[in-house]
């Protein structure tokens, strides 16, 4: 086999693969998964390894490679945010109820509406869930396998992207909260004043199973 023929079938050198990943990530505003990188790069490439080199190369630069769920994206370094006032998108100010509901979904996911209400001690208003869905920060998760099969809510990858989190496991303070038992769905010893039909589930402790 001639040398040229061989090179036709061999994967490009790693330095070249790194350039490819760099170009693809740069071109996209949305995070790109490793699977998508692989499907777009020539046969035989190892985008995961190329990504590792690329992340290292951009450490400490003005833009970084960040991980969002299973995907990767370039984002500007947070310490340079002050330069970007022109780029800032004025976002709607979230109500306290919306912020708390979002936090409860993030930390307790998958979580049912009843559980959110039990934690906050008030009914979740219709607009709140609607708004968080519209922002694409939450979505419906798997139904709970309990009587009534209530729907659950979980946070999305856009949520992770927005708050610069690799995964829900990286939520600030989540380990401490779990260790303190504050993420348990502790059954109330008696139906307390808030009416909750579905019994708290023991199965819920598998938080963040992936």
């Amino acid at each position: 086999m001639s040398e040229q023929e061989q090179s036709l079938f061999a994967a490009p050198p790693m330095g070249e693969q790194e350039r490819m990943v760099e170009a693809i990530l740069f071109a996209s505003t949305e995070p790109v998964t490793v699977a998508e990188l692989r499907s777009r790069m020539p046969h035989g490439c190892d985008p995961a390894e190329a990504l590792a080199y690329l992340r290292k190369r951009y450490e400490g630069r003005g833009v970084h490679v960040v991980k969002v769920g299973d995907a990767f994206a370039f984002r500007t370094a947070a310490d340079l945010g002050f330069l970007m006032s022109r780029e800032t998108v004025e976002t709607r100010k979230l109500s306290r109820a919306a912020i708390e509901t979002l936090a409860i979904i993030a930390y307790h996911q998958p979580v049912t509406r009843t559980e959110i209400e039990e934690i906050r001690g008030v009914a979740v208003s219709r607009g709140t869930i609607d708004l968080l869905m519209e922002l694409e920060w939450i979505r419906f998760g798997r139904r709970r396998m309990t009587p009534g099969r209530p729907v659950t809510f979980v946070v999305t990858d856009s949520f992770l992207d927005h708050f610069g989190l690799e995964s829900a496991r990286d939520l600030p303070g989540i380990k401490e909260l779990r260790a303190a038992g504050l993420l348990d769905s502790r059954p109330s010893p008696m139906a307390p004043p808030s009416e909750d039909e579905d019994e708290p589930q023991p199965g819920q402790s598998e938080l963040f199973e992936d």
Partner: protein
Amino acid sequence: MAEQDDWIEAERNATAERLAAEALIVDVDGFEGPLDLLLTLSRTQKVDLRRISVLQLAEQYLAFINRAASLRIELAADYLVMAAWLAFLKSRLLLPPEPGEAGPSAEDLAAHLAFQLERLQAMREAAARLMGRDQLARDFFARGLPEGISLHRKVTYDASLLDLMRAYARLRTKDEFRPFVLDRKHVFTMEQALERMRGLIGYVGEWADLQSFLPDGWDVSPMARRSATAAHFAAILEMAKRGQVAIRQSETFAPIQIRRGPE
């Protein structure tokens, strides 16, 4: 002299406390439910939530509710439900348990309430920390100029789950929003009634209630009955004008009676 200072001091403290309580009351709309109010009240105990006195908290809450009542402030029902429950809990905490009493102990209930407060507080703090993080498009940024120029142009269609659910919801509730149309199914016209009565009147030698002439099936719904009654009434007036029927009514709202006319 010193005594008087003490007295003034005490007076001042009492005033401050009263003002604080009133400030809390005025702010009642600002509370997100009874649990939020309890959490605010618990801060006055100035201890770790794990060592909170639930008994004292119950008393504070009940005092708050009483005060709101005396100021004629309307409280939402769930505040009153919580008050009733706390009054129950308070009595359970104060009285020795009845022998052989089933169900959870007062201590269990109190511990659970303390847990709920601690958990709410923890979620508040978590929410604050979350919102305090660097955020996309505020502190860090995505590529401002995504590239997408290429010769290959492929059209694909997209929809979100939200679109899907809204579409389904719209379909399933379509009937609720039917545009207004006259409901002809339940309308009995005067022409129909006239036709009917002309056929029937020949058999009415004695006084008979107009009601008994309504067609079968037109007394099931109020709407149909009203329409049929009105149509038949108009029809007999028309027939009376022509002398085909005689009409009488003994008093206002009494049944209307008819019989064959004198002609």
